[in-house]
Each structure stands twice: as C-alpha cells, then as structure tokens.
C-alpha cells in the first residue's frame, strides 16, 4: 500500500502544467446577468448585431435546463459564482508578437509553446488563448499571403464581420443545448480559421487554451470554414493550474466543409483533472460539431482526453453532402475520480456517406468512463456505411466502463456495424514483459500505447509523441 501511495504521489506531481502565472487580470464581477453579457460585448468593442446575438442566446439559456442524462455526477454548478470575463492586463495592446508581456510569453514557454516564430522548427501556427482572450497568433502574415485567415475570434468579429455573420451559429445554433447557449451568451474569445477555395493550408494551425485566473469560467468559440477543395489540419491543446475549486469550461467548436474540402481536427485535452481524492479540476462541457456541407467533403475528429474532472463532449459530423465522410477517433483516459461521458454523433443525410468511429476508453482508479454515440441513418441516405469499434480497458476493480451506442437506421441500403469489447491488462501479459527485462510501469505503458495505437496514428506526428507521454503519465501507478 505504501508503495502505491508513493507512485500516486508522482502522478500528482506529474500534472506539470499546474502552475499559476502571477499577472494582474481585468475581470468582470462574479455572476451572470444581461449586464454582464453587455459588459463582455462592450469590452470587446463588438458591433450591435453581435450583442443582440449574445442577448438572444442568454435569454434562451435562462429558459433551458441543465442536461441530466449523461453518466456523470457532480455537485450543482452555481452559475452566479463564476467570473465570466477575465483578461490578463497588458499595458499596451500588443501590435506584434514582440510586444506581448514577457510574463505571458514565459507562461507559454513553460507549457512548451513558443510564440517566437523564428525559433519554431516545425510549421505550426499558434493562437494562444489565456483565460478569456487571445494574446497572440503566430505566422499570420505568411498565412494571409495564401488568403488564409487565422486569428482570434474577437479580431474576426472586427475584421471579417461578413464571414462571422454568415457562418457563426450555423452548425451549433444558439438554442442547441444548455452549454452551447451559455457559450453563445458569454464567449470571450477563441480562434477563427478560413481557408479559401482550393487552398491546402501548408502548416498545422493550432490553438492553445490556458485557464489561469481563479473562479473564472472559460468559454471559447472556434469556427473553421474550409471552402471548396481546401484542406486544413487543426490542433488544439488545453491546460489549467491546479486549484481546489472546480472551474467550468464550456466551449463550442463549429466546422464547415464545402465540396471536396477536408478538415482534420485534433485535440489533446489535458485540463487539470483534480487531485487523487477528486478535489478540484475542470468541468469540461463542450459542444463540437462539423457539417460536411458539400459533396465529397470530409471531417475527421481525433481526441486524446486525459484531463478534466468531468468531461461531457460529443464531437459530431452531419454528413449532408453526398459521398461525404465523417471520422471520430478517441482515446479517453480516466483515473482517480475523473468521469468522462464522451463519444460522437454521425448523422447520415446525403447519399453514399461513410462514417467510422474508433473509441478507446481506459479506466483506472475509481473513475467512470462512458462511450455514448449515435449513428443515425436518414430515410434518404442511400448506401450509408458506418463502422464503429468501442473498446474498453479496465485497470483495477474499482472503476467502471460503459458503452451506450444508439443506432437508428431508417434506410435499408445502409450497412451499420458496431463492435465493442471490454478487457483488462492481464497479469500474464505483465509477467511476459517482466521476463524480458521490462518493468511493470513500462509494460503497462507499452500495452496501453498498443491499445490506443489506432487512434494515435491519426494524430499529427508532433502531437502523437506528446499524447503518448500524457497517456503514460495519466495512468502511472494504476497497475501492479
């Protein structure tokens, strides 16, 4: 038992993103009212139509009820005890990346994100978001030469109102669900990407989200539009300091793929999961949805979910265009008291649409890990194909693994297959590795990486290495 707690200690220490940056913040008072919505909108100097949009969402939200159907338990959230706007105070508004407050720059460097374009070896453009605002976006100029818009959402509202008006809220309407309505009312920043017709984005675009301030909620909104024949690969990473109090994160991501366009969206979610007794951690309620609007379009979601105390998240694809493809690759790891209820929805509407779901859940400690998915084949969706594979791996006998796949088929030309298995890491596998000189921790990491490989292969190289380390760290001490 002593040995166990020593290992657990290292696990805790291993949330290496748990530090706090000391920087003065510009904050809204606690609580949510129409005035706060107005406050946020005016802070961001938004046009009237944007404020109206927010207020509509807020008024709708007031009438909604928090959903209760997911397989997660948490104490009631007091929405009046949250700060809805917090921005690090910077003396001058940075005009270029060089003017960013050095303290913030250091924060991101500590997280392994360099905002210094020259120093970056790989071609990844980054939008860095801290608490409620974006503090800088790299490689903007180079991308602009190709007509690609990659900037913070606030900037997009100012600079590209016609695009925002046209696309914002078209995939996830403000009335969609409780958390998306809340987000629409109070979202403070996020990223906007627009890939014009025929352009293949030459580098990975990424947003790095960081919660820093205490008692704040983070509500970012991301919108990616890929016009006809374009391609983009987008990455998202998130961390937060270790705090005793739970913090709310309710994001919305909308993807729109026109004819022959492809969007690949990868997430490594590592919000602070809380300590081993379940104290603290982020409540992660996220609505992510993409629409394959045009024929032959493709949207692919890949997620590695290791963080958060509670995760509620179902990245979905509406397969509207004929011959369009939706993919969902997921690894969700829960340890200690974490709870995850995650999965996807594949809505087959167009003809010859295809979807593929690969979900790998790993549960350890006293955690609960649920896969919840819907495959819906519309009456007119001729020749729809879906294949789903949901595997669960249990480590220890106090955790739970659950699968809730909903399959609705209204067209007889569909072929829908679903497979699920549950297993554990066997003593015999561990011993075999031990006998070859591999210690138990390494053996577990090897087996888990093997279990997760199909999903890992979907991640861009640079992310995959990071994600693999993350998996090992998240599960350290849970076997043997």
């Amino acid at each position: 038992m002593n040995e166990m707690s020593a290992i657990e200690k290292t696990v805790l220490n291993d949330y290496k993103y748990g530090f706090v940056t000391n920087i003065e913040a510009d904050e809204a008072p606690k609580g949510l009212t129409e005035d706060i919505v107005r406050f946020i909108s005016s802070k961001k100097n938004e046009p009237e139509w944007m404020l109206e949009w927010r207020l509509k969402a807020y008024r709708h939200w007031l009438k909604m009820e928090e959903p209760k159907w997911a397989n997660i338990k948490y104490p009631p959230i007091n929405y009046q005890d949250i700060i809805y706007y917090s921005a690090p105070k910077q003396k001058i508004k940075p005009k270029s990346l060089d003017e960013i407050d050095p303290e913030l720059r250091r924060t991101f460097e500590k997280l392994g994100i360099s905002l210094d374009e020259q120093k970056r070896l790989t071609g990844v453009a980054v939008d860095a978001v801290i608490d409620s605002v974006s503090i800088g976006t790299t490689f903007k100029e180079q991308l602009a030469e190709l007509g690609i818009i990659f900037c913070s959402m606030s900037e997009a509202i100012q600079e590209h109102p016609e695009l925002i008006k046209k696309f914002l809220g078209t995939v996830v309407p403000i009335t969609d669900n409780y958390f998306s309505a809340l987000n629409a009312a109070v979202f403070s920043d996020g990223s906007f990407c627009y890939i014009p017709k025929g352009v293949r984005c030459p580098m990975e675009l990424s947003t790095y989200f960081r919660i820093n301030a205490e008692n704040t909620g983070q509500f970012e909104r991301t919108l990616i539009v890929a016009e006809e024949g374009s391609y983009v690969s987008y990455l998202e990473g998130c961390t937060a300091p270790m705090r005793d109090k739970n913090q709310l994160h309710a994001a919305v991501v909308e993807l729109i793929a026109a004819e022959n366009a492809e969007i690949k969206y990868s997430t490594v979610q590592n919000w602070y999961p809380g300590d081993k007794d379940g104290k603290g951690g982020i409540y992660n309620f996220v609505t992510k949805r993409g629409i394959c609007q045009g024929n032959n379009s493709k949207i692919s979601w890949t997620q590695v979910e290791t963080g958060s105390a509670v995760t509620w998240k179902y990245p979905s694809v509406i397969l509207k265009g004929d011959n369009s493809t939706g993919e969902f690759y997921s690894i969700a790891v829960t340890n200690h008291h974490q709870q995850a209820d995650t999965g996807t929805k594949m809505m087959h509407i167009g003809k010859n649409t295809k979807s593929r779901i690969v979900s790998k859940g790993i549960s350890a400690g006293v955690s609960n890990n649920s896969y919840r998915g819907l495959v819906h084949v519309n009456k007119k969706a001729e020749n729809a194909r879906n294949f789903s594979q949901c595997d669960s791996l249990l480590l220890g006998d106090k955790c739970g693994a659950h699968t809730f796949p909903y399959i609705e088929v209204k067209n007889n030309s569909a072929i829908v297959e679903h497979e699920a298995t549950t297993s554990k890491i066997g003593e015999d596998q561990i011993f075999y590795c031990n006998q070859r000189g591999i210690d138990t921790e390494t053996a577990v990491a090897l087996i888990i990486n093997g279990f997760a490989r199909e999903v890992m292969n979907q991640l861009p190289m640079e992310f995959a290495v990071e994600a693999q380390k993350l998996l090992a760290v998240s599960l350290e001490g849970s076997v043997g």
Partner: protein
Amino acid sequence: MLSIQNLHAGIEEKKILKGINLEIKAGEVHAIMGPNGSGKSTLASVLAGRKEYEVLEGSVTLDGKNLLELSPEERAGEGLFLAFQYPIEIPGLTTTNFIKTAVNEVRKYRGEEPLDAVAFLKMMKEKMALMEIDQRLLSRSLNEGFSGGEKKRNEIFQMAMLQPKLAILDETDSGLDIDAIRIVANGVNKLRNKDNAVLVVTHYQRLLDYIVPDFVHVLYNGRIVKSGPKELALELEERGYDFIKNELKEAV
C-alpha cells in the same frame, strides 16, 4: 553458473517442488524431463519469478547472485531468459517495439547506454538472418495471430536479441511439428557458446535429437529422481516414465 539448492515451492497451499538440487555450468545444456504434473513448468516459472508461485525453502543463485530476491525484470537483467510454453499476445504492440524496449531496459539494468535506432536495427538485421525470421513477423502485433511455430520462433529470436547467460526453454516443442522443431532447435544451437547455458524442459525426447544435452534429469513428484547422460532421454522414450516410477517403488 546456476545453482539450485533444496528448492521447495508451491502454489496456493499446494506444494509442487519438494527439494530440487541442480548445478549448471557455463557451456552446458541440461534437459529436465518428466511426466505431466511432475513440476517441470513450475520449476521454469519459479526460476523466472512468476509471483503466483511461492518459494518455501532453498536457494537459487545465478553466478552467485541470489535470484529469489529479484523481481522478474531484474532476473532478466541478470541474464535469465525464459522461452514461454504459451507466449503471450499483446494486441497493438509491435514485436519490434517490444524487443527494442526489452533490449534497452536490460542494457539500462546492466549500466549500458541504450542502443540508438541505427545500432538496434543493425543488430536486429543480423539476428534475423541468423534466425531465419521474416521481417513481416516483426512488424505485426506481438504474437497476435501468430501460428504456434511462429510464436516459438519469435521466442528464440528474442533470446538471440537479449543474449542471456541462461536460457530456459519451457516445453518449446509442445504443439510443433517436426519441421518447426528443427528450425527452433537450429536457432538455439546457433546461440550456444562456452559462456552461456541452456536448460531444456520437455516431456518428450524428440527435441533432444536436435538440442543435444550434456545431462538429462528426470523430475518426478517434485524431485529430481534420476540424472544421467543424454542416453537417459532415449531410455525414457523407449520405456516410458513408468519405469522410473517402478524403480522408485522398488527402492521404497
């Protein structure tokens, strides 16, 4: 090299090994034979450190080092290798990655630098040629979907890569046809030298036609009841294990 003295061991209250004594020197091949249930596989498992088995009495040393105090991976680091009777499948983990991890962990244990990708590949190519093993096998998930023969060849390939002092082959011949046995035995023979030793655990004499032992021991009811030169194996094959049992009865 290996010294086993008065080894008693069992599983879940059941005593299986009841006083084993065995000395193996570098360069030697020993065979342990015995009827089903005599304790052959238990001995192999206890030497490798399978934790379900409890050692009740006695000592085991490898070059003077007390093995019983060490974890299975430390024993592997000391140079003990067990070729499993039933090699384990690990879906998703490639054989190459597995072996690379093992080789470098063992090197780390011995205080050696890990092999870089180039050096590892070079070593693997050499051993692949030596063991006549197909590249394709190595890029597949560890033992998953391998035939019986492929699994056993993979075991011997790992032995080649890890270069143990003492290799224990636990019923490596079980379930193999004669051609597969020949290939596996060839592999083992190529790896033999004056500095290492092999302990072959088997029920049948057949494998010993190809891996010729210096000594044959008969394990019966948890004890080595008879030891002799390689001809003993032939005698056992001809007369069956009953003759040992009868001899024992007469002795009583």
